[in-house]
């Protein structure tokens, strides 16, 4: 059994609460004094930093929403001067304004630390070769995993995403032992290996750390069977820090959260009440060590639950269950966040009114597929096939350029998409998770 930071990973619950309380108080002071948005939010609730005496008082603090990041774009929630920010990442901004996150030197240390913990839990050591096949760039996946791997002391191979043949040949030549990528890419690698006749014995792969998209237990089993590796689930979101907000240990039974950095709560998304241990609800995070962009009670919109029992691995850190859904209608398709409203605005740009539409998500050959069904209106209709195909092409192209994913557009007859009396149902997700 190996730990990266045994002191914190195996701390008693009481000690952990003490650490969290001290750090929370500091963070609340920092945001109250340095971030106008937080000062305003706390003033409105009539809470002063001095009212927060321990982690028990967390529930009195205001929530932070993604919208707060957008409203203060780009740097408005930062709690340090820009001279101390050494790195910036950003979301693709497909749902409107980009959200920007900034890191101080110390924040990058924390990030590497939490990933080093998770990678160690997955079996990574100084002797390991880690291939990072997450995209490098504004997306936090690539660089996050990269620095974490270096922190452990492994030999990091920064292949980034794509160019699968090269990835596979490097994997053979360098003796890659660990890979970090999306689970669907792992399966794609398995297929390519079979295609190219690369035998499992040509590879030294031991484990993979997979995240950035939802995946199922059956998918885990498939990856493990086909690649003959241990498949470890990692969770993260750039607002909190990036990958490494939670990760499984070798027992693969819930993802440990480094609670000395990120305090999780489960709330009822409607009443906003904190739910008792074990309940399923929206997971909310408070960062207590971040300097650049500390977030108080950040609403992730992800549905999960928390398990505080000591894990078989010996860690006392709480474990969060796999995310089972969202409180909003966001879809993750091939790692890209897609909101039906984005498709709606594309459709609006085609005609004068947005037609009824439905997104049908499926998974074929382990890759997500998206079909956009669009009800053809009289105004859009033409008696020429060519003109209707032009409409399909135009929508496909617009979706590709605004959302960054390829979709199949299918024109359907009016009223053929089911109407609902309440909130319109825009998504049929056929993926089995």
């Amino acid at each position, binding site marked *: 059994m190996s730990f990266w930071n045994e002191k914190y990973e195996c701390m008693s619950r009481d000690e952990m609460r003490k650490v969290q309380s001290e750090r929370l108080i500091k963070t609340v002071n920092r945001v109250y004094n340095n971030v106008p948005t937080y000062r305003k939010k706390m003033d409105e609730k009539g809470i002063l930093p001095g009212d927060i005496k321990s982690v028990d008082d967390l529930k009195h603090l205001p929530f932070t929403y993604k919208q707060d990041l957008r409203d203060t774009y780009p740097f408005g929630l930062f709690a340090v001067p820009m001279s101390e920010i050494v790195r910036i990442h950003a979301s693709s901004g497909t749902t409107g304004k980009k959200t920007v996150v900034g890191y101080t030197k110390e924040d990058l240390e924390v990030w590497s630390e939490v990933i080093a913990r998770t990678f160690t839990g997955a079996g990574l050591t100084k002797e390991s070769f880690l291939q990072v096949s997450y995209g490098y760039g504004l997306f936090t996946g690539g660089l996050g995993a990269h620095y974490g791997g270096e922190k452990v002391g492994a030999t990091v191979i920064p292949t980034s995403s794509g160019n699968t043949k090269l990835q596979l040949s490097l994997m053979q030549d360098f003796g890659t032992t660990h890979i970090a990528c999306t689970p669907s890419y792992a399966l794609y690698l398995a297929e390519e290996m079979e295609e190219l006749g690369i035998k499992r014995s040509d590879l030294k792969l031991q484990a993979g750390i997979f995240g950035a998209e939802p995946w199922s237990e059956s998918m885990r089993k498939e990856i493990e069977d086909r690649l003959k590796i241990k498949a470890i689930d990692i969770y993260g979101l750039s607002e909190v820090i990036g990958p490494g907000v939670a990760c499984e240990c070798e027992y693969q039974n819930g993802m440990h959260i480094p609670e000395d950095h990120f305090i999780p709560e489960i709330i009822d998304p409607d009443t906003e009440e904190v739910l008792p241990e074990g309940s399923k609800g929206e997971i909310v995070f408070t960062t207590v060590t971040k300097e650049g962009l500390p977030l108080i009670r950040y609403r992730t919109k992800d549905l999960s639950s928390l398990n505080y029992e000591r894990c078989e691995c010996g860690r006392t850190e709480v474990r969060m269950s796999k995310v089972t859904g969202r409180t909003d209608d966001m879809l993750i398709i091939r790692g890209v966040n897609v909101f039906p409203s984005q498709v709606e605005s594309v459709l609006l740009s085609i005609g004068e009114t947005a037609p009824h539409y439905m997104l049908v998500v499926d998974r074929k050959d382990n890759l997500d597929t998206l079909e956009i069904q669009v009800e*053809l*209106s*009289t105004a859009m*209709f*033409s*008696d*020429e*096939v060519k003109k*209707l*195909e032009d409409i399909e092409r135009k929508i496909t192209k617009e979706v590709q350029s605004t959302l960054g994913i390829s979709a199949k557009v*299918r*024109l*359907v*007859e*009016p*009223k*053929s998409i089911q109407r609902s009396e309440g909130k319109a149902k825009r998504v049929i997700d056929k993926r089995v998770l």
Partner: protein
Amino acid sequence: MLVQQISVFLENKSGRLAEVTRTLASNNIDICALSIADTTDFGILRLIVNKPQDAEKALSDNGFTVSCTDVIAIAVEDKPGGLAFVLEILQDNAISIEYMYAFVGKTGNEAFVILRVENPEDALRTLTNCDIKIIPSEKIYCNVK
């Protein structure tokens, strides 16, 4: 001189065409000619009927996406070269055809050809000048009767 054609959008799923014909029948509308252009996902049904306005209303009342377009109906000799002769005239006059389909009437040795062009009025003039026999809508409708 132009003929009104009804076009209907159809998804490629079973029963849709039957639904259209049922709707027309129950409204006492006669189909004189039809053609279907299809892709993998959808088709466009083009119809010449005796009561185009009624047909358009009946179909759209039944939830179909319908449009009405002006097309030209001409008569060509029902023998080899009959159609080629007309097409040459159109080509010589730089009139491009969006689509066309033919059907045979109940009398005589003429075939009827429906032409859809960008500018039907211009095409009509050209064809008349070249002595191509244009069939007015009334004639199309009663010919089938």
